[in-house]
């Protein structure tokens, strides 16, 4: 950058030196400024006129917040006039000048340029964060910067009108700018919803800005279970549903809030099913167990809220079943598997056969699913050579054990 300025100054000097200016050799020559005006409005024409006794080698150095420039004069009846360039005239604030004659600064002064208050101002408005939580502590901040057409910020103490709307209330506040900005914290509300705000200054208003007030964390809620029958047939669906989950300000929690339904069965295993809420209600489903069971169900919005615990008891659907071995013991037929009304159970009940050798070592678990009430398992010779085996059969929570010998 410095180099750039250096080059500019050199260029200026070159361009100046081409003018045929006869130089007055006066060591203590001090040109007098003619105009006394020091306060201008941005955009106004500014010229600085000095009284001289003829032609002098004079330049003026202008300096404002943007930077510095050397300006050459124009002659006007033995006086020299410096016209301040437009970029210096547009920038509000202090503009310093130094008059340089024969390469020496001889006099200096300053101009005060004010923002152009008469023309239509512009507003820069920001509002954020865009979403906050209902309650008492959270807030969004509304910030406004008022500027004139040249992007000069209006001076400290400018009053800006802040408006905000929530439900039926519209509030208005006049905020005085400090350190170039006007700002206000718009506090959250206990009710969830949407806060709309805008700002206005003189005849200009900003566009509408929004912050969403999301509900706060959920509080204790209730759940219920819904099912067709209470038999453990492994094929019906049990549905868990919460009532409308609210936060402590009675807002319905935001859509999509995750609810974990934890099911504890009689074996102490924790099963789970999850659901996001819609209008505060989460409903999740899971299959009936395939054996007699007592379930304890509790739902959580983890860290925030817990439901009551409900229980669901499942009665045995399949009381017993037959197991038929083929002559060689290699083909096993399980069934018929009948349910609570003696109907054949729907296809797909899991039948597990754990195979142990005679010393009790687990060899393999075979899993089949029932078709039309029956399950078939074959013990192939390749994998289970002739010998003594111990079998544990498990279906619908009914365990049966057999010792058998496979030969052929």
């Amino acid at each position, binding site marked *: 950058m410095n180099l750039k300025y250096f080059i500019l100054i050199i260029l200026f000097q070159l361009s100046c030196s081409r003018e045929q200016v006869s130089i007055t050799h006066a060591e203590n020559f001090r040109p007098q400024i003619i105009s006394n005006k020091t306060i201008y409005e941005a955009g106004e024409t500014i010229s600085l006129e000095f009284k001289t006794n003829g032609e002098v080698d004079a330049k003026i150095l202008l300096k404002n917040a943007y930077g510095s420039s050397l300006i050459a004069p124009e002659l006007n009846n033995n006086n020299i006039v410096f016209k301040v360039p437009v970029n210096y005239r547009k920038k509000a604030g202090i503009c310093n000048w130094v008059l340089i004659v024969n390469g020496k600064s001889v006099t200096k002064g300053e101009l005060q340029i004010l923002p152009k208050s008469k023309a239509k101002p512009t507003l820069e408005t920001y509002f954020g964060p865009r979403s906050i939580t209902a309650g008492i502590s959270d807030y969004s901040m509304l910030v406004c910067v008022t500027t004139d057409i040249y992007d000069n910020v209006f001076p400290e103490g400018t009053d800006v009108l802040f408006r905000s709307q929530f439900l039926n209330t519209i509030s208005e506040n006049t905020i005085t700018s400090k350190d170039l900005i006007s700002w206000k914290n718009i506090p959250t509300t206990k009710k969830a919803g949407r806060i709309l705000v805008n700002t206005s200054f003189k005849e200009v208003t900003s566009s509408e800005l929004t912050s969403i007030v999301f509900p706060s964390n959920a509080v204790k809620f209730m759940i219920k279970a819904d099912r067709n029958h209470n038999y453990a047939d492994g094929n019906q669906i049990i549905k868990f549903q919460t009532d409308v989950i609210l936060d402590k300000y009675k807002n319905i929690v935001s859509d999509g809030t*995750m609810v974990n339904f*934890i099911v504890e069965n009689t074996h102490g295993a924790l099963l789970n099913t999850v659901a996001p809420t819609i209008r505060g209600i989460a409903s*999740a489903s899971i*299959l009936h167990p395939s054996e007699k069971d007592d379930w304890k169900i509790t739902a*959580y919005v983890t860290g925030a809220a*817990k439901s009551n615990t409900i229980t669901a008891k499942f009665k045995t659907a399949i009381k017993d079943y037959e197991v038929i071995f083929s002559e060689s013991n290699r083909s096993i037929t399980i069934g018929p598997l009948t349910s609570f009304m003696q109907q054949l159970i*729907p296809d797909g009940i899991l039948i597990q056969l754990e195979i142990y050798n005679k010393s009790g070592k687990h060899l393999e678990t075979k899993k089949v699913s029932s078709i039309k009430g029956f399950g078939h398992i074959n013990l192939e010779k390749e994998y289970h050579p002739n010998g003594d085996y111990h079998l544990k059969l498990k279906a619908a929570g009914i365990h049966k054990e057999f010792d058998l010998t496979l030969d052929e």
Partner: protein
Amino acid sequence: MKTIQNTNTLLILALIIGLAFHGTSIFFTLEYTYDALIHLFFASHYAIDWFEPWDYHWYTGFTVQSYPPLIHQTIGLLSKVGGLKFGMFTVAIVGILLFITGVYRFAAFMTGNRRVAGYTALLAVFSSTFIETLHIFGQLPSICALSILLHVMPEIYLWTKTGKYKFLVSSLSLIAVTVTSHHVTPIFGMVFFIFPLLGMAVMDSAAEQVNNIKDVRFKTFYKAFKKCFWRIVIFGGASLVLIITCILPYWYNSKKNPITQVPIPHGSRDNFLEVTSSGLVFFVIPWGILLFILPYLFYRFYSKRYMFFGMSFTMLTILGTGGTTPIPLKLLGETAFNILTLDRFTLWATIMALPIFGEFAYRLVEGDLKERIHGMFGRLYHRILGGTIAGGLLLMVGFTITLGYFRPSQPAQIKMLPIVNFLSQDSHDSWRYLPLGFGDQMAWLSAQTMAMTVDGNYHSARRLPELTTRAIERIENSKFRGVEGIGSLQQFLTVPEKYNLKYIFSNDKFYDPILYFCGWQRLQQLENGIMVWEKLNVPPLPEILPKEQTPLFLNILWGFIPLSTVVFAFAINIMMLWLKKLKLRKGELPNFMKLSVSYSHFPKNLIIINHVWAIIVLCSLFFGLYTFYVKNTAQLSPNNVVQSYYDAIDFKEFERAHSYLDPNANLSIDQYMLEVSVTDGILSSYAKLDSIGIELSDVTNLSAKAKVSTQWITPLEKISKNYFHELVKIANKWYIKTKKKDSDIPPDQLFTENTTTFYNHGRRKITTQQTHHEDVLKQPVLEILSAKLVKYNGQYSIIGELQNVDDVPADVVIKATLYNDLNKELAVYNAKFHVKHKLMPKETTPFKVNFEGIAWSSTKDTMPPTFNPDEFTPIALDEQPIKFNLQTAGNVANTDLYKRVALQNLEFTNYGINGVLYNSGIQEVTIPQLLISYYNEEHELLWVDHQFMTEGIRVQRKQFFTYLPLEIDCIKVIESSLENCYVNGLPNASITKKVFPNREYEHSHAQEQQYNGTGFSFIKFDINSYIGNPK
């Protein structure tokens, strides 16, 4: 003999046929070749900025001074006339003309017989090696350089023999063009073509001394050599200078950026007897019909005049056999063997053999061989033999040129316009992109867009250690390169912000699961069917990107010299020729034309030997075909039927698979297809069969049992699975007996479900400016519930749990940094598979960050030979990590929020935890993933593990799993602290205080399953579901 001005009709015929045949067929083949589009991309670089060597499009920037530029610059220049492809095809056509004329001149000088040279030119048009190089490999620079090398050979010969400076100038001018086209050709050309050529020139000089070549003895030869010595030295020195100066920037770059790339496997280095496909492509096709006349070739090459060519030809032939014999490895040494693609040796050998083949054809058609055969076997046999050879030649031509059609080496042509448009819209090119499954067409995409990719298609120019340490050609086709491929891809997918990588264009759904589990999300499907994936929280590329400066004079040399060499060579060789013609001076016959031999008395023994040889070749061919038949005929043996069945399953040819099933089982094709169509999951949809082992037992004449051990490669993990089959033989064919399918039926025929879905507008205001601040959503707030640095099995990990505490769904990115006790940064990595990347409001997830090093960077030599995608290379840390920093970022997510999989049952057995998952929602889950958290008695997290399930879960169905809990008593918690944890740049503590001041920690504890494990007391299962086809 006629004067040289007479036009050779055979040559004209060859040129016409060559142009008609190759000139038209390149339009159907060239774009599908391996290399052509790469050269097109380089050309596009020069078309945009001729003098700038740095290209940002590939590999986060590379220099085009890593490849000789002539062909690229020519295409780039021609692209200004009619586009890049016009340039490419024009250069290809010029290459074809140069090749045919080059071969003609080469043959003319070798044999001194224009008739033979004409035959050679005609055979060159149909040479399978040329067809393969042009139409399958698309090696344009190589073809052009080789053709010019053939042109230069008579000039060098004449210089050496006559010492006239005009020949030196013309030969050097052509050498310069060769050098700027392709650097390998002149270097190896010197060894294999020009050395024997010089030898032959000396030999001919010697022969002139004694009048007959047969009388040349070593002494005469030495005398002649002394005479030619300085000519050879002058030529050699000048060529060396040209090789160095013409592509000086190339050498400068090679010195400055030595190739650090680890060797990339290439088919030409295979053992052709083991890998028959490589044998076909790199041996059988290039040799083609020449294989049958090998004895004749060697007989002629080892005649005294051609002796040096004979030695060179032998060397080339041996080197071209790749890994079949250990000789090439020993000759070239380990390094050169692994860098060079050995197919070029075969190419040169077959080109070198062309004049002798031409001579053979001449003698067979109208020479002494014809008469000899007439005499020995009669006229009919001669005709049959001629017909057979011609037929064989045409068969090879047809086979070679259609190979790319029947066995495409590239994915189907992709319409690039939608991708190009996508990249130029909405500042999408402010990030890097990555194409997946594009094949070599990725180069064509790069040539058309300003956007940059981390991948690239010229591996010698790579700079990222993530790529140079992997033996992969491109990340884009990483699935074909096994562990290195997928491993390399995973690094880019896990830490995309390191490369400003935001968009992935997927043309292969194989990669979908890995993208999902690395935290990418589907953005949209373009109209050409390409799926666009995006990653949130990736910063755009900086305005100014780093580049390597090269001295200005090198860039200017690079820009000017290549085309100048062409202009110079043109002026010298063609203009002089024209001038000569204009002066109407009768041209003097070139020196070598006087040395033609008269073809008479074709040796009888040679005919017999060659016949025997041809019969041996034919027998090997038939034997090969027979073995192929026996191995591949599906139902010939129990082994075959199982192999074929799994092959069919692997390639998703279900009708074929069904044809191997027991016809007596009454499983109709409809039923079978139906059963196949309803199975989904990583095994059936995303797996490639890697290896198969078949153990047969109980084999009788009519039945057998098979235990099939399969290894499947999936984008996520390697899966081993054993299957058992019963086989039967019915009517001389073996079949597989069918098995019963799971008979489970879902409870409801029709059911309803309400879901919460989300939509994010992105920009509401349509503007090219920066997104309006009102349209920027707040980043969802996350809270880190726990974080620990642990050491398990010698590997450092950061584990923890976090929750989305905001009211909108969040996409989660977790970045962890390790420090030593002096706060020196040791390693940075992101969470990969061990986290649910998408969280609903108030949902929690465990996470684990593993610190992966750049795989095998230190153990190059012991690279595992087999494929294992989930192979993990722990980072090598010099110092002990003591502290860590965790940066998490949330971004609003609105896709992949399916959470409807329930844990239906759990059972604790001695051999693991058996569980059942149940899909209660309305989307089919393709790959369910279990995230398993381990806790101690105080409910403190100790470890996080994961398990992918091999089968998907259909709607309202169950899926069984078995999980074997780990023994984690050796785990060591190094640090447990939330102090240096940040969310969206804010300290985690401030979030805890503000958003969740009254957290109930009991809730989490109540969701943990008590379990008496080794080293832990509680365990928890989280489920993450990948949906392959969201509805």
